[in-house]
């Protein structure tokens, strides 16, 4: 009664299905459109997400007519550089899975090694189980999953967490979906040393880096959300900023852009406040001038290179 209704196997007299209605009822049209609208670039990711959503939609209809279907394995791995939108897509994915009824509650529990692995003998299993219990009925998102495995220390407790995870991923497939995320190369070596994971994960999705033009669109979208806009000259300055920032260390795609936008807002506010006698209008408040962008350390050779600042 309080349960989310699961897809029923009865109603055998249904022979025709309105796909549009089915998709809308599951709420995936909205979620996919939102994904398209709010995530710039990421073409391969979007098409994989759409494929998975289509598969699940068809799977659900097939279940209704009673066509043979094993419950699909939904565990996924997201690989890509920092700031390419892995967490954001995981949140959307949870929504899609929930809409289609493949997870019952749709919450996303985001964890890292620290949340799963204990500090002394006998501490890991309860800790991992605690997290798994919280994630039941939803999505467990393990960020930087390769830290679970420490090849240099064979007595590391991470292995214990991995074993519990694998067991639950196999036995309780209908209760939760596990998404592993991390940087490409390290995930590959992680899977190589834990073949159990690789075979239990159905969907490997790679997140490409953003192109410069895409980063600019992202920056403008972020500014718009916060009620700002670039002046033409500032926009051009920011293009140069992106080109420079990309070559400097600790560049993490959209996250670096978000930090840059936040710092630009700081400098804009500082510029406005520095002249107290001036009368401001709305345009002043919302416009980012080139000086706000150009004051960044990125242009002076990048202080980021010396101090480890993201």
């Amino acid at each position, binding site marked *: 009664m309080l349960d989310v209704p699961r897809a029923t196997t009865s109603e055998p007299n249904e022979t025709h299905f309105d796909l549009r209605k089915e998709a809308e009822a599951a709420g995936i049209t909205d979620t996919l459109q939102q994904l398209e609208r709010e995530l710039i670039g990421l073409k391969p990711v979007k098409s994989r997400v759409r494929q998975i959503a289509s598969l699940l939609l068809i799977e659900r209809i097939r279940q209704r007519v009673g066509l043979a279907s094993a419950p699909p394995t939904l565990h996924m791995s997201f690989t890509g550089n920092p700031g390419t939108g892995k967490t954001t897509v995981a949140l959307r994915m949870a929504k899609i899975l929930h809409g289609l009824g493949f997870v019952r*509650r749709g919450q996303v529990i985001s964890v890292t090694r620290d949340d799963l692995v204990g500090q002394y003998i006998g501490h890991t299993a*309860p800790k991992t*189980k*605690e997290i798994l*219990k919280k994630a*039941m*009925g939803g999505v467990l998102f393990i960020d930087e999953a390769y830290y679970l495995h420490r090849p240099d220390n064979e007595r590391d407790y991470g292995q214990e967490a991995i074993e519990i995870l694998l067991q639950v991923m196999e036995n309780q497939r209908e209760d939760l979906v596990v998404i592993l995320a991390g940087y490409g190369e390290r995930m590959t070596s992680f899977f190589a040393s834990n073949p159990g994971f690789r075979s239990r994960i159905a969907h490997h999705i790679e997140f490409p880096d953003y192109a410069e033009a895409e980063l600019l669109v992202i920056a403008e979208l972020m500014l718009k959300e916060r009620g700002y806009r670039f002046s033409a000259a500032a926009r051009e300055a920011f293009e140069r900023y992106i080109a420079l920032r990309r070559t400097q260390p600790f560049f993490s795609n959209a996250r670096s852009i978000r930090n840059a936008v936040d710092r630009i807002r700081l400098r804009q506010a500082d510029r406005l406040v520095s002249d107290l006698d001036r009368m401001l209008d709305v345009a002043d408040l919302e416009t980012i001038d080139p000086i706000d962008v150009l004051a960044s350390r990125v242009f002076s050779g990048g202080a980021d290179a010396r101090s480890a600042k993201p």
Partner: protein
Amino acid sequence: MKLTQGCFSFLPDLTDDQIYKQVQYCLANGWAVNIEFTDDPHPRNTYWEMWGLPMFDLQDAAGVMMELAECRRVYGDRYIRISGFDSSHGWESVRISFIVNRPPKEAEFELVRQEVGGRAIRYTTVRKPAAHAEQ
């Protein structure tokens, strides 16, 4: 003799699906769900041993069912009950408690009557030793 304690105990034993739904009801109300077990189900024995910690912040009853399966594996020959604790102000107490596992041979109790001064009667619930020894 079927032990009757807590909710639903006059009904046939709950199936796992029914337990799942009851637990989900507890979670939907924001109660912390506990699994407790004992080999001494005397009605006055309020404090059963706990299986792990109370389960806070769960969204789905599957997590509780996972622990219950584990508890049954270890203590399948004992009584196991699930209780839901409501921590909200004014309640701060157990709102639901029901038995989810019974030993193959149930505990048996009898009522012992004792006459005391002034024709007053004192009652004692005594566990029958036979059933206890057989376990």
